[in-house]
Structure formats: structure tokens, C-alpha cells
């Protein structure tokens, strides 16, 4: 299965396991981290970015692939006739992941009529793919202030303090909301919540449902949406927002993914919960994201005049799968490192503390494979080892089966037993740290337009800690649902138009939004 080079290296990893278990590399100082990031993190490569020339963020540096969409060619022209208006709802929610579902539940609970539109099925999203857990304060030794410090520092002090304060402050209540809906978090035999560390946390604060936390959370939210009979329009993409005469958002043009047919929905408020941008595959990196993560919300919002923040900041997860090849780029949860698995180079040496923040760890892996030439190569892809057998050496036989069952099953399908064999990993495009600027009511800078989840920016600064995304989609998804319902309650339907396109000049021919990744 492995080449001669890999087999030789594997033997070194096994021989050094005892030594590596006894002594792990120290945590870096903040200065050392900055130095490592500037030299090796993909966000710091000047040739991969361009400066926007048009729109609210003109002058800002963003990834080349994102700029093409933000200044690309709309799928409708300003002079086109509006497709037939098929629905009128108080709150139109675009996106069927965790943030969209949370917004829908809350908006309906506040008395609004709701329509949730999703490109695939309800739940087909990055949310279901989240593995490791959700951060929230639940233990007496912890505090929301500590959660704030860990997250603010982990994001290099670039987060919006108010947005981050709201995120961590509402953590405990959000965890309670989930358990009240019936989400199963890992517990000990007496029913107490189990918590673990994530990269950059000073207290054990991650709550997981084995290694399928997002899937467990999403299937409960989806079940609740079904039970509350919230209308869902699946296989439907938003291709343009609609605006009224004042420029406020008044609905959206939707397109059936199968037939291409279009319809317009008139709405008093719109919640963008369209998720991330991994499928842009910036700088040629593979991605952990699902097929629909194509930055549609950013393009739609930017064209109606919404301001973006930190749009240049992407998260490369340090441990994407390199082998087996069909799983290239897919996520190996940080929980593996939280449970003690270390990153090991070709010579069998541990080279970074396993729980540095994600960007620092990713940069360390890239340095090992480039400047230090101590990485491996698998069918042309660079890689290092993640020594998963360490987990059972530290915590006992059976730990992987009980804490990482999905990961064990995923690799077993391709003949790899992660309990006895290390796996090959390399950084992969995981998360968009920045996005649409919002305030603590989840309002964007455009009237009538709300946003929640990965499509937003400002909450995580320049780097998001593990477990803060699941919290984010719930705290801000629910907030967006409430705020959008409240605003809609005091508003009448406006006449929806494509007026904003009249002032818009495409800067390139890229169709925008992308809608779906071509694999």
C-alpha cells in the first residue's frame, strides 16, 4: 500500500513513539507564533491575494478566487424581467445548515412566517461535517471570561470584542437549549458532561457527541424543523437578492438546481446563512467543506452593498487526510490531537505542541514539509504523520472506539486501522474566518439583511478556535432569526426589484454566485 519511503518512515515513527509520548514539544510564545505564521501560513503569501477595486471594501486585500466572485458577473441583468413571485414571507432564510435551521426555529417561535431555502437538502452543510465538538462553559473551574480570553488571543486579538463577548457569554444557555432539544453530548457514567481541550483552550470546554458532533446537532435541529412544520424549499439556490426603492433587501431570486427554473420570493427580511467558501480551493488547497460551500452569500451580499470584514483570513485545518486518496483534504478532527495524537515528521520526530491554535499548527506542518524538508510525499502530495496509536497508549484500549468511532470506520473502509497505524495528513482549507460584517443583533450594514454562521466575520478575528463555529452558528443563527422576525413584524412588504444591479459593473466574467463546485 505504501511506498518504500513511507514504510521506512513508518518504522521510525513506531520506534520513536515511546520517546515522543514522554516529551512533547513546548508551546510557543506569541512572538514565535507570529514569526512562524508570517513565514509559512498561506494567509501571508502576497501573490495569492488581490485588492478589490469596487464595492464597500474597495482597497481591501482578499483571496484571488474570492475577488473573482465579489466582482464577477451576476446571473441576472438589471433590465431582466423579474421571475414570477411565488411566495411572500416575513423571513426568508437562505441556507440549510445549522445557522439557517436555528434562525428558522427562532423566527417561527417569534411569530414570523418563514421559508427556508437550501441548495441541497436541509442539513447538507458544513455543520454535519463538524466532528470535534462545541465550546461552551459548563464546568465550575471555567468561566465565560476565560473562554473569551482563549478565543480572543487565539484569533490574534483581531475579533470584534462585542461580537465575541456575545458568543462566549451565551455559550452556557446555548448548550442548555441543545440539551432541551435532545442533543446527546458525551457524558460519563453518572450523566455528567464530558469536556476536552481543543487547540488554544486553557480549560477543558469542548462538548462532543463522539466524533460526529455536527451531525448529531444537525439531525436534531432538522428533526425539530420538520416537527414544527417550517416550510423548506430544497434543491434551490439563491442567485440574486432583491431590493426595494430605498436599497433595503426585499427578497431573493431563486433557481431550481435541477431544472434551472427561476422564481422570486418577496420577504420583509432575509437571513443569509449560506455558509463557507472552502470550494474556492484557494491556492490550490483541497478542502474539508461540502460541495455547496461556494461563498454565494458573500457575493450576493456584496452586490447589495454589504460591508465585509477580515475577508482575507481563511483557516487551513492542520490535519486534512492525504491518504487514502479518495478522502484527500477531508477532515481529521482536532479531537485526535486533543486526545494526545501528535504530529510526527518523516524522521519520527514530534515538531509542534499538539494543541497550538490551528493556524500555528498548520504553519508548522507546512514548514516541516518545505523549509525543513522533513515531510513525506504521497502521490505528489506533501504529508506528515498523525500518530493516532498514541491515543490508546495514553488513555487505554478502546478509547478510539468510544471517542472516535466515525474516524475509525472511515479509515477501516480503506484498510487502515487507526488504533495501530498512524495516518498521513496535511493542511486543508477549512473555514472562512472573515465574512459579512454584522452587529450583535446579526444585522448587516444593509437594511433588511441579516447574516449568521460562517458567512459572517468579526467574531473569530484572524483565526477561529476549534469548537467555536458550532457555537457561532447557534448563537448568531438564533439571534438572526429573532432580529429578522422582530424587524419584519413592524414592516410591510415592499416591491422587490433588481435595482441594485443598475449601478453595478462586473469587473470580470466569472459567473457569480458560483452555486456549486465542479469536482
Amino acid at each position, binding site marked *: 500500500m505504501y511506498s518504500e519511503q513511507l514504510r521506512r518512515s513508518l518504522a521510525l515513527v513506531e520506534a520513536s513513539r515511546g520517546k515522543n509520548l514522554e516529551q512533547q514539544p513546548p508551546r510557543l510564545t506569541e512572538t514565535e507564533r507570529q514569526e512562524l505564521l508570517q513565514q509559512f501560513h498561506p494567509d501571508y503569501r502576497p501573490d495569492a491575494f488581490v485588492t478589490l477595486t469596487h464595492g464597500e471594501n474597495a482597497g481591501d486585500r482578499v483571496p484571488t478566487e474570492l475577488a473573482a466572485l465579489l466582482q464577477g458577473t451576476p446571473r441576472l441583468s438589471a433590465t431582466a424581467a423579474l421571475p414570477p413571485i411565488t411566495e411572500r414571507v416575513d423571513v426568508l432564510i437562505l441556507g440549510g445548515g445549522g445557522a439557517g435551521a436555528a434562525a428558522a426555529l427562532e423566527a417561527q417561535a417569534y411569530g414570523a412566517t418563514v421559508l427556508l431555502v437550501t441548495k*441541497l*437538502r436541509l*442539513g*447538507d*452543510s458544513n455543520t454535519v461535517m463538524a466532528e470535534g465538538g462545541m465550546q461552551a*462553559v*459548563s464546568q465550575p*473551574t471555567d*468561566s*465565560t*471570561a476565560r473562554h*473569551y*480570553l*482563549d478565543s*480572543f*488571543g487565539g484569533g490574534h*486579538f483581531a475579533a470584534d*470584542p462585542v461580537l465575541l*463577548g456575545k458568543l462566549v*457569554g*451565551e*455559550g*452556557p*444557555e446555548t*448548550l*442548555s437549549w441543545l*440539551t*432541551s*432539544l*435532545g*442533543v*446527546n*453530548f458525551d457524558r460519563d457514567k453518572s*450523566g455528567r458532561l464530558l469536556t476536552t*481541550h481543543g487547540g488554544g483552550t*486553557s480549560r477543558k470546554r469542548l462538548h462532543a457527541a*463522539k466524533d*460526529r458532533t455536527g*451531525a*448529531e446537532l444537525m*439531525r*436534531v435541529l432538522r*428533526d425539530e424543523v*420538520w416537527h414544527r412544520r417550517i416550510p423548506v424549499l430544497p*434543491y434551490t439556490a439563491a442567485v440574486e437578492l432583491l431590493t426595494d426603492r430605498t436599497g433595503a433587501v426585499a427578497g431573493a431570486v431563486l433557481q431550481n*438546481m*435541477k431544472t434551472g427554473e427561476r422564481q422570486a420570493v418577496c420577504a420583509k427580511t432575509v437571513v443569509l446563512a449560506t455558509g463557507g467558501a472552502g470550494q474556492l480551493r484557494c491556492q490550490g488547497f483541497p478542502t*474539508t467543506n*461540502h*460541495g*455547496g460551500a461556494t461563498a454565494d452569500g458573500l457575493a450576493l451580499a456584496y452586490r447589495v452593498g454589504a460591508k465585509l470584514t477580515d475577508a482575507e483570513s481563511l483557516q487551513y485545518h492542520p490535519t486534512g487526510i492525504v491518504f487514502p*486518496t*479518495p478522502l484527500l483534504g*477531508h477532515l481529521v478532527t482536532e479531537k485526535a490531537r486533543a486526545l494526545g495524537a501528535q504530529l510526527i515528521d518523516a524522521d519520527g520526530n514530534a515538531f509542534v505542541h499538539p494543541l497550538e491554535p490551528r493556524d500555528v499548527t498548520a504553519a508548522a506542518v507546512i514548514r516541516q514539509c518545505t523549509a525543513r524538508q522533513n515531510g513525506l510525499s504521497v502521490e505528489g502530495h506533501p504529508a506528515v504523520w498523525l500518530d493516532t496509536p498514541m491515543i490508546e497508549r495514553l488513555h487505554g484500549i478502546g478509547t478510539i472506539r468510544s471517542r472516535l*468511532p*466515525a474516524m475509525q*470506520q*472511515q479509515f477501516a*473502509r480503506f484498510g487502515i486501522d487507526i488504533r495501530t497505524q498512524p495516518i498521513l495528513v496535511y493542511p486543508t482549507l477549512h473555514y472562512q474566518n472573515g465574512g459579512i460584517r454584522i452587529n450583535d443583533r446579526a444585522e448587516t450594514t444593509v437594511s433588511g439583511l441579516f447574516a449568521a454562521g460562517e458567512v459572517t466575520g468579526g467574531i473569530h478575528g484572524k483565526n477561529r478556535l476549534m469548537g467555536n463555529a458550532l457555537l457561532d452558528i447557534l448563537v448568531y443563527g438564533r439571534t438572526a432569526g429573532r432580529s429578522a422576525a422582530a424587524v419584519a413584524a413592524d414592516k410591510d412588504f415592499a416591491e422587490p426589484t433588481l435595482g441594485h444591479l443598475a449601478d453595478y459593473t462586473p469587473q470580470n466574467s466569472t459567473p457569480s454566485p458560483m452555486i456549486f463546485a465542479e*469536482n
Partner: protein
Amino acid sequence: MPTVSITVNGQTYAVPSEQTVMQAMETIGLHTPHSHSCRSGVCGACSFRYRLNGKTRGGLACQTPVADGMEILKPPSAKASVSSTDPIACHSCGQCERICPQQLPVQWIVAAARDGALRRCAELSFLCVMCGLCAERCPVGINPALEAMRARRTVGKSHHTSLLADNAELQTLVSAPLAAVKAAYENRDFEG
């Protein structure tokens, strides 16, 4: 490149042997974008049915390697059913279990739901991706995925307690000067 033969819609194709069924469907041009989302074995959108060595099985196309002689009976497609017959109607034919792409003990899951053994049902069904293949096959209309969902939610709710945050210290930090916050960050102590 070594290839294997697979049959789809009665037609035989040679596809690279190291591909997954999803990659093979893309190779031969039969793939539709709405039958995949996560490509990592968790969303359940790409479930498919196939016959190999005389046995009918279910799989997730993104996670199943192709095999020589594989006959795709139903290509990847998404489905979701939202109704279920009472599991008391189960007569243990075993169709659900044979088709499950996650190799879950579906008959035991249904039996546990029937008997009200909800904790067991929740534990056994944890890796369910709710793809719907079992429900589609059940001759009496039970939807094991929904029965399991109900059990998991009931178990989850049984542990519910309300947590309240004390945010006084947090509010001080949010409005504190950056230098003070940076110092506090550098001076954190770590739980072992």
C-alpha cells in the same frame, strides 16, 4: 492504470480500480450534483444500492471503493422519508440491516425502539446518517432512522439541565484596554 468492470443501468464500464463509486460515476459521466454534499460519509445524500457476489447491499458512494463485477442497482440519489409505521409491525425480515451503508444493526435498533429500550437504541444508532435506504426497503413501512432519531432525542432530553452564565467578569474584559487583555492572555494557566 488497472481498471475494474462495473455495471450501471445495464451498461458495463471500465473504471480505475482505486476509485470510489462516486468518482467512478463522475468518470463515466453519470453523476448529478444533487446526489452529493459532504463527500466524507456523513450527510447521507449519496446512498446507493448495488449487487456484488450475488448479494444486494447499500453503500455511501463517496466511501465505497469500486469492485470488479459490481452492479449498481440504484445510482446515488438523495431521499428522505418523514413517516414511520409503528415498529411493532416489524417481522424481522432483515432487509434493513442488509442494505445499511453504515453496517448498523438495524433490526436491533428497531427492536430496541419497539421495546422502549431507548438508551440502547440511541447508542446502537449513533452513526446513522439518515440516508433512508432502510426505510425504502422495509416491506411494512417502518422508518428505522426516524425511530432511532426519536430515541436519541428522548435520551438527550433526559439529561437536560439548565446552565446559567455569570458574565460579570466577561463584561469587564470586553471593554478592557487591549494591552490588559493581552497580558491576561499570556498569563493564563492551563488545565492539565
